[in-house]
């Protein structure tokens, strides 16, 4: 006997496009429930990792025109080497992470000894460079030291415009707290289809990087 399956109009609720079916606020009826617009795509966990790479179409990673905006979140990035920089690069075709970038960087810090400063960080910005973009400076490798933050990547699959990115991080270095801001554009009109994270020296000893897609429909 064929199984009788329920259809969209089998439920006692008014269908609403792209909504889920849920219980109402009194839990005595059905209603439409909004799905989230920020979708977790992939979590990578470091374990003495030389690199952590998000490659479209590999290991369930989506980094194409499915979403107009992507967000990476870094949680407790802990390096193997002391005072090393967390860094990123972008792939614009081929197999190399070498998209040309122009960027700006500034930072503010405050030490446990009460010294503080705000300034542009000219040694960490890029001008038409294919090198990695540093997105923290000098994370310590003591057991309790790490860095956290986020990177927004706009319209990576676009083939008309450059690709904008915005980074904000905070980290614990040599007994100081530093907040760090990097932003720039990949000066390419080719699609960016992979993003790779690494340390300036040694490995990413531990930590988590999450990739989210932001829906616009």
């Amino acid at each position, binding site marked *: 006997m064929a199984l009788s399956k329920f259809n969209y109009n089998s439920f006692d609720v008014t269908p609403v496009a792209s909504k889920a079916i849920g219980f109402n606020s009194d839990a005595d009826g059905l209603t439409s429930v909004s799905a989230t617009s920020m979708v977790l795509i992939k979590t990578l966990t470091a374990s003495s990792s030389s690199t952590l790479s998000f490659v479209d179409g590999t290991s369930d990673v989506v980094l194409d025109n499915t979403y107009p905006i992507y967000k990476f979140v870094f949680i407790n990035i802990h390096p193997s080497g002391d005072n090393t920089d967390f860094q990123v690069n972008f792939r614009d075709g081929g197999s190399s992470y070498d998209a040309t970038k122009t960027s*700006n960087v500034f930072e503010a810090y405050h030490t446990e000894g009460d010294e503080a400063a705000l300034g542009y960080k000219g040694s960490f910005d890029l001008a038409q460079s294919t090198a990695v973009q540093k997105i923290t400076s000098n994370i310590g490798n003591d057991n309790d030291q790490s860095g956290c933050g986020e990177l927004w990547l706009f319209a990576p699959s676009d083939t008309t415009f450059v690709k904008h990115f915005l980074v904000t991080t905070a980290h614990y270095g040599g007994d100081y707290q530093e907040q760090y801001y990097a932003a720039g554009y990949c000066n390419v009109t080719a699609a960016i289809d992979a993003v790779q994270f690494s340390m300036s020296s040694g490995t990413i000893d531990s930590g988590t990087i999450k990739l989210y897609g932001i829906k*616009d429909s």
Partner: protein
Amino acid sequence: MALSKLKYNSFNVTPAAGKAVGFDSGADDLSASISGGAMVFIKKLTSDGSDDDLSFVDGTSSVVLDSTYKEYIFFFNNIHPQTDQTNLVFQANAAGGSSYDETMTTSTFQAQHSEGGSSELSYESGMDQGQGTAFQRIAHEIGNGNDECSSGYLHLFNPSSTTFVTHFIAESHSYRYNDYSHRLFTAGYFNTTSAIDEIQFKMSSGEIQGGTISLYGIS
């Protein structure tokens, strides 16, 4: 014959207020522990290539900009101007108002670096407002070259409040007309206790010729 529809208690699961019905972690049973999203897409406006402005008006064209959410985020993506060296700007209209001219006080600072290696971090007193009613700049001197544009966000807090002023924070990155990577930070408040229910974006000169602006509510 009237169609017999399945009701809330037709599922083999204990109903839970506000939760969606889904599969459990073993994918072998139903669950009512799935929450709806905390970041809810509301509306996307796409430039048709010659827009004088892009406006989000509560209650119009499916736009929600009221007490439904305490926070709203506008993401602007690849905004491309008709005119070279123009700014993306925005203003608000309070409930019952007739024009985009709310009084605001704002602060702005920038970081930039050119393809030629020049750099700067500075407060920008030419972009801020002290009790002004002009449109507020949130992206600076975008180029109109074929690959030039700006992206970023505007975060609006509790616009329906009639007790407090309405705060906002914006951040953008632009491919500046003179080949700079330009990051602009803007924050401020609409100095009114009227509810803000309309937001309008436009270029400081000419049209918005490309890009999208999407509105989200944060529950």
